């Protein structure tokens, strides 16, 4: 005989304000099989859990239902409580009466009635639950970091320092990412390269870190603790083990007109090149779309001059396969394309630039050696106008609906740096709102205004047009209720940022969920901000949402802590809610194996007794519980119903359906 206990949580007023929790608990007492029903203010609290534990022991409960928040929130908590009281943790079911009831309904009677149905449904299910025991799977003590920007670098260093092997896969020829392109960093104005490049070197020298530059993830199989990843090592046409980084090839290469991506295409580079002076690995790469040897078959000058004999025009993409226990995604961002914003004249005027382009123009290692010169004529600009929120907070479909978060701060930084270096320059900033939450952030922005006399104009720019060589920036000054036009020499667009587009493919490979803006979704916005809902996958940096360097580094270290915690375990508990075939009913038809994404189903020839001393050998399905992820695709494909899913059995769901339909 089943002895079910029901526990209704108030969640303070979160549930109790709209659901009559006492009435729910009372009504449920009459349900067949229910021997105990109670309500409490915070069921997830220590006291609440104690209430559950006591009831389990006192009333000898065989199963419990907790009417509370989403099972995605506290199912694990209540399972643990049940286990502590000696009840199998899988004899617990949650009725979601908060997210799916009290929070979305306003009428108390209606919400209470629904809560009762939801609790009844959970009771109907729990009555058919079976005690389950989690299995174990080994953990591969190696981590994969996808993306070699500051997020990836920080995560890799932290994991490696804890003594675990880490591979960084970076699609570009060098690690460093966006941060390597920056000049100074806010709010301290220290030099970006000065703080980043030592970390890049640390990575290269760390005995536990393997940098796989110019590589991409091709295929991911397996699951937490046991990922099997295929990595494409793109042909760079230079032997990484031989190249000494002497740069003689760059000097001799006759094809020097390639756009320099590192400098935001503001200058050119040779076909064979090292992206920048401090690149890691300090190894050249040939741009085969530009190289004369690849285009005409003639040339080969770099090969002739390379003393190390590192040039190899025949090099092909190669693939390596490695096993990992955990994966950190740190794919970063790019500024959006400005095709939808003709009003700012970016395409037509060389002197309308993005902020990232300005970073390169201000950088000592950039195309102008750090001297601020206009791209059009190489003159010093006398009037510089910044426009914020270009493409951010845009719900018209032209840009991005979110705030890019970093623009207010870097624009203040740019304005300040220009005023500092060239005090005779006039600097205007058009802004909608100034958003500077963060330690010393608002103080930083105020310095730009108070100390550096930057002219902040509240209002958006409507148009930028060229008149007699001047860039006329026409916009609102909302404080004065005026329309202003500022004749400028240089216009800088604080362009919105978006996730690096390659993240989509990676999300698909990892089956990590992704939102409508292509940001990877975290497991919980507040409590599990660095974990992807896919176990064993962690998120660092802008791939998860717009953020600045300090936040990125914090998140990367948080990821590392999670990864270290995972890799430190010798075994992982596996989900016991896996598919299991009833061999007596299995036809051996292979339909289930056809739909299994994990290859968890194989077939065995088994002898069955037929009665009367006769036996029969039949082909039947066999599920590897360590590989099965418990999706249930096989259960529906199985025509005989031999395949069922533990924890979500057909009988359980049927019973839920029956209970939930009853009015």
């Amino acid at each position, binding site marked *: 005989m089943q002895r079910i206990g029901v526990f209704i949580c108030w969640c303070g007023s979160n549930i109790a304000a709209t659901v009559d929790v006492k009435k729910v608990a009372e009504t449920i007492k009459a349900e067949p099989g229910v021997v105990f029903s109670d309500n409490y203010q915070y069921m997830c609290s220590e006291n609440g859990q104690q209430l559950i534990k006591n009831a389990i022991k006192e009333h000898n409960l065989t199963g419990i239902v907790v009417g509370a928040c989403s099972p995605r929130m506290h199912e694990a908590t209540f399972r643990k409580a049940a286990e502590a009281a000696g009840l199998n943790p899988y004899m617990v079911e949650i009725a979601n009466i908060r997210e799916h009831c009290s929070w979305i309904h306003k009428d108390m009677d209606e919400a209470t009635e629904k809560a009762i149905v939801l609790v009844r449904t959970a009771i109907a299910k729990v009555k058919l639950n079976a005690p389950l025991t989690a299995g174990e799977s080994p953990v591969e003590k190696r981590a994969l970091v996808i993306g070699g920007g500051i997020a990836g670098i920080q995560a890799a260093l932290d994991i490696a320092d804890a003594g675990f092997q880490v591979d960084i896969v970076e699609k570009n020829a060098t690690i460093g990412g966006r941060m390597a392109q920056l000049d100074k960093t806010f709010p301290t104005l220290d030099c970006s390269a000065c703080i980043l490049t030592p970390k890049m070197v640390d990575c290269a020298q760390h005995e536990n870190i393997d940098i796989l530059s110019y590589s991409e993830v091709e295929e991911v199989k397996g699951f937490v603790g046991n990922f099997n990843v295929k990595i494409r090592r793109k042909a760079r046409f230079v032997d990484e083990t031989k190249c000494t980084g002497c740069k003689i090839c760059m000097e001799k290469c006759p094809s020097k007109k390639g756009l320099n991506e590192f400098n935001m295409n503001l200058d050119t580079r040779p076909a064979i090149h090292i992206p920048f002076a401090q690149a890691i690995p300090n190894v050249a790469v040939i741009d085969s779309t530009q190289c004369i040897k690849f285009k005409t078959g003639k040339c080969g000058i770099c090969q002739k001059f390379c003393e190390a004999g590192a040039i190899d025009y025949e090099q092909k993409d190669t693939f390596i396969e490695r096993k990992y226990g955990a994966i950190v995604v740190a794919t970063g961002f790019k500024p959006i394309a400005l095709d939808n914003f003709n009003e700012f004249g970016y395409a037509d005027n060389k002197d309308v630039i993005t902020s990232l382009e300005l970073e390169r123009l201000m950088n000592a290692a950039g195309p102008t050696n750090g001297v601020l010169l206009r791209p059009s004529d190489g003159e010093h600009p006398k009037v510089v106008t910044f426009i914020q929120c270009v493409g951010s907070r845009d719900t018209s479909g032209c840009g991005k609906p979110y705030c890019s978060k970093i623009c207010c701060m870097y624009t203040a930084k740019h304005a300040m740096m220009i005023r500092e270096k060239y005090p005779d320059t006039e600097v205007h900033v058009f802004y909608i709102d100034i958003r500077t939450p963060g330690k010393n952030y608002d103080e930083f922005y105020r310095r730009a205004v108070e100390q550096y006399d930057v002219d902040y104009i509240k209002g958006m720019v409507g148009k930028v047009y060229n008149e007699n060589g001047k860039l006329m920036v026409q916009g609102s000054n909302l404080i004065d209720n005026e329309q202003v036009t500022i004749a400028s020499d240089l216009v800088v667009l604080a362009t919105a940022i978006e996730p690096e587009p390659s993240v989509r493919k990676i999300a698909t490979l990892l089956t990590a969920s*992704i939102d409508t803006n292509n940001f990877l979704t975290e497991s919980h916005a507040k409590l599990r901000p660095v974990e992807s809902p896919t176990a064993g996958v962690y998120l660092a940096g802008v791939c998860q949402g717009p953020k600045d360097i300090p936040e990125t580094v914090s998140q990367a270290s948080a990821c590392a802590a999670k990864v270290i915690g995972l890799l430190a375990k010798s075994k992982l508990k596996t989900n016991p809610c896996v598919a299991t075939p009833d061999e007596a009913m299995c036809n051996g038809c292979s339909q289930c194996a056809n739909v299994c994404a994990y290859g968890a189903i194989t077939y065995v020839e088994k002898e069955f007794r037929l009665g009367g001393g006769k036996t029969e050998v039949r082909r039947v399905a066999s599920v590897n519980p360590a590989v099965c992820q418990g999706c249930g*695709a096989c259960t529906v494909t199985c025509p005989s119903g031999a395949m069922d899913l533990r924890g979500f059995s057909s009988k359980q769901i049927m019973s839920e359906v029956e209970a939930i339909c009853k009015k």
Partner: protein
Amino acid sequence: MQEVTEKKEFTPNIVAFCCNWCSYAGADLAGSSRLTYPANVKIIRVPCSCRVNPTFVLKAFQQGADGVILCGCHPGDCHYVTGNYYTRRRMALLFSFLNYMGIEKERTRVEWVSAAEGAKFSEVMNDFVKTVTALGENKRLTDLRVKEGK
């Protein structure tokens, strides 16, 4: 005016099967964002939309549901890699078949709702309830014994 009040008296019984990773989380987000939808929508959690057997859908109708909706991750984003691709085929065929047998096509629906789409979840449910309310009670795919017994 009268028509409106008459229709309001009928509140359809809606069963929503939601996959644990996207749509159930999307429903949670709708909840934490306080995006309302009618209380007659009730959710059953399944690990993946591909766990939903046609018998569950039929059972729901038999037991008096007036509309059944399946929600899963967007195709390509399935937590279980390919589960919802099978759902898509199965339910396309099943729903077309049910319609072939005369069941109103508006009573069945498949929607892809990600964990980030709380607003979409609420919109979808509001819309579905509206559609099914306009259709009226499910009479064609129900077990009279169940309806009378209640």
